[in-house]
């Protein structure tokens, strides 16, 4: 994979289906699994594939990402040659500071693409979580002589949310993409794109320039669908765990799935551990009287109460007599003595006062915004 560079596009649009969770951050910066962010998975996938040149296209609110990524040290991407390049938006004659789509974003950052010494580009979106190494996908790309290879999976019926924006693919026996439908009314094609593409850098540059000349900005609509006949587009199937973070329910499901060892281990640490920023927190502390079951607990937590079926991020405090059930509590949340929470997703540093009761439902968890005091 020495001849591949990575390009990650972080979409910044606040998605109504994610409610307050994306109000101040992109999906890429969303905290998951107790100590990670979505971007950790995307970067670790690339690093474990041997990619050492990664461009990260950010938009308006990229502070959370910059803060998290620093120099790329935690991903081994602080390199003399190549490494991690954070590509923030900038305003020029042709740029407005936010992008209308993937093509527009790459157009604005063509100078980075041109400078990359690698021949192939691996482009990913940033709202899907999975643990993969791309070696085999690249091998298939070269063997089939494809112009573009798209990573896809075949989600279970239950995973197909009605209102999700997804790209469905029809493949022939050889794996070539012969039809594409975006958010179809009926799910005629079971294969769904994971928004990861491999293509030659020269082709990418060409497509971006031609599209820009035609005021085109959407990669799926304006390139893949338009050029399906002219380009050899192949699919590469991934069979591991995939979760698209497209709603609060999906976000919750992803976290809850991590309580299952058979999902947690391959997704987070074996064989390819997900790297993340180290915070040097103290081990978690269970006081006498703590009752914790079926829960993922990060370092720095102090627990005196009861916690069930939950995910506790770093530095969460659960007071005496407090009961936390089926919750996701992000970094620094404090639940005071006697408070009761169920089906709650709380953003960072929220403060739940003594004896408060907050009850959501599995089908509609309550989302508490960052720094809220309740």
């Amino acid at each position, binding site marked *: 994979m020495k001849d591949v560079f990575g390009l990650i596009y972080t979409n910044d649009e606040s998605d109504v289906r994610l409610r307050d969770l994306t109000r101040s951050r992109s999906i890429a910066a969303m905290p998951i699994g107790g100590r990670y962010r979505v971007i950790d998975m995307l970067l670790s996938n690339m690093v474990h594939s041997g990619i050492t040149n990664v461009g990260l296209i950010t938009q308006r609110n990229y502070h959370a990402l910059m803060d998290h990524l620093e120099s790329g040290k935690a991903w081994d991407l602080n390199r003399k040659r190549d490494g991690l390049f954070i590509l923030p938006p900038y305003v020029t004659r042709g740029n407005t500071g936010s992008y209308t789509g993937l093509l527009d974003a790459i157009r604005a950052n063509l100078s980075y693409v041109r400078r990359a010494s690698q021949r192939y580009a691996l482009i990913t979106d940033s709202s899907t979580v999975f643990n993969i190494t791309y070696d085999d996908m690249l091998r298939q790309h070269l063997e089939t002589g494809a112009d573009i290879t798209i990573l896809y999976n075949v989600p279970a019926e239950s995973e197909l949310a009605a209102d999700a924006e997804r790209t469905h693919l029809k493949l022939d026996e050889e794996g070539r993409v012969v039809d594409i439908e975006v958010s179809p009314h009926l799910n005629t094609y079971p294969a769904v794109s994971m928004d990861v593409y491999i293509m030659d850098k020269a082709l990418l540059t060409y497509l971006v320039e031609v599209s820009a000349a035609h005021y085109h900005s959407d990669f799926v609509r304006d390139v893949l669908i338009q050029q399906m006949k002219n380009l050899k587009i192949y699919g590469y199937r991934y069979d591991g765990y995939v979760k698209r973070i497209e709603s609060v329910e999906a976000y919750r499901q992803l976290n809850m799935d991590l309580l299952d060892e058979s999902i947690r281990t391959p997704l987070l640490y074996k064989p390819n551990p997900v790297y993340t920023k180290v915070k040097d927190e103290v081990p978690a502390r*269970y*006081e*006498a009287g703590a009752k914790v079951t079926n829960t993922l607990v990060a370092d720095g937590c102090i627990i005196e109460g009861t916690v069930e079926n939950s995910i506790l991020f770093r530095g969460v405090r659960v007071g005496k007599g407090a009961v936390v059930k089926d919750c996701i509590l992000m970094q620094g949340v404090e639940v005071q003595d006697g408070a009761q929470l169920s089906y709650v997703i709380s953003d960072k540093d929220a403060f739940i006062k003594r004896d408060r009761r907050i009850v959501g439902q599995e089908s509609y968890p309550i989302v508490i915004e960052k720094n809220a005091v309740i």
Partner: protein
Amino acid sequence: MGKKCVAMLLAGGQGSRLGVLTKNMAKPAVPFGGKYRIIDFPLSNCSNSGIDVVGVLTQYQPLELNSYIGNGMPWDLDRLTGGAYVLPPYQKGKSGTWYKGTANAIYQNLAFIEQYDPKYVLVLSGDHIYKMDYSDMIAVHEKKQADCTIAVYSVPWNEASRFGIMNTDENGNIVEFEEKPAEPKSNNASMGIYVFNWKDLRQYLIEDEANLESSNDFGKNIIPRMLSEGKHMVAYNFEGYWKDVGTIESLWEANMDLLQTPPAFNLYDSSWRIYSRNPVLPPHYIAGGAEVSGSMVTEGCMVAGKVEHSILFSGAQVEEGAVVENSVVMNGAVICKGARIRRAIVSENAVVGPDSVVGGNGRIAVVGPETKLPEYSVVKPGEQVDTEVLAKRLAKAEEEAK
């Protein structure tokens, strides 16, 4: 480029009283407190005190320490000028020797210190658990214009005869030093932390080396000589938690100190964080049916059994039906189904087989590193079992079976 202060951390000690724990690693590399090693404390103290040149003197079983310290990155000691350096003994012309004593270890690295031309040299040992602002000690040294400042700790009177005792006058100046006195006149024990003026120290070390009768030790030679010459020696009183974890019992105790409410030794101070090299592991998982209380648990652990008043280190596992009480379970150790651990230290990557019993009410039992105890094993209180002892045991059992 000049630096104000260079720290020299003596990390060559074997720690032989730690038995099987230090058979294959030096004492400063011994794991502590769930995710730390002993050396993390002096290194973090240096980093938090703004000391950015730290020479780490290694000698005994240095592999683990060398790879642990690496370039010093976890302690923010990867610096353009300075940073953390591992300094093993080396060949010089025809005369390469091991570090003969603490003073000799520094003597052999005079050239290292010379590079930075510091005003002060801070000598530390890698054997203790404590948090200390060395910059405050250096400020006192400066203010009192001392020739040498020695950190002292008030130990209980009945234990004073185990330490090097500093007798001081009313101004805090040291007037006498007694190594392990039978009848101590004071309970100010030396913590093995010294601040010297570099120019003077350099001279003392060179002269001490030339003296063939010297055992080249700070406590035995350098300090007594400075005192006899009437140098201005100042005692720096340290208050706070300080623990020598030189024995199995004291190592176990220091770990248990972390479990008190509030902890006898507070790690939860974000202004004085203790840094360590973090393994890449997910948050720990407490299974349905598990019971965890009064304990510390860290990343990568999996608990399905019962854990009471114990510390689980990174990646430790406690299977269903296993019971862990008042114990220290180190990195990657596995306590299998039905095993019972009480008042014990289970070392790195050891496996306690199903239905085994380790420890009990009495002295601390130890399972050595990488030791895989088969099912129904018994390790009695005070007993230490490592791979070697286990192999003998198994051979004996086989013979008896014949």
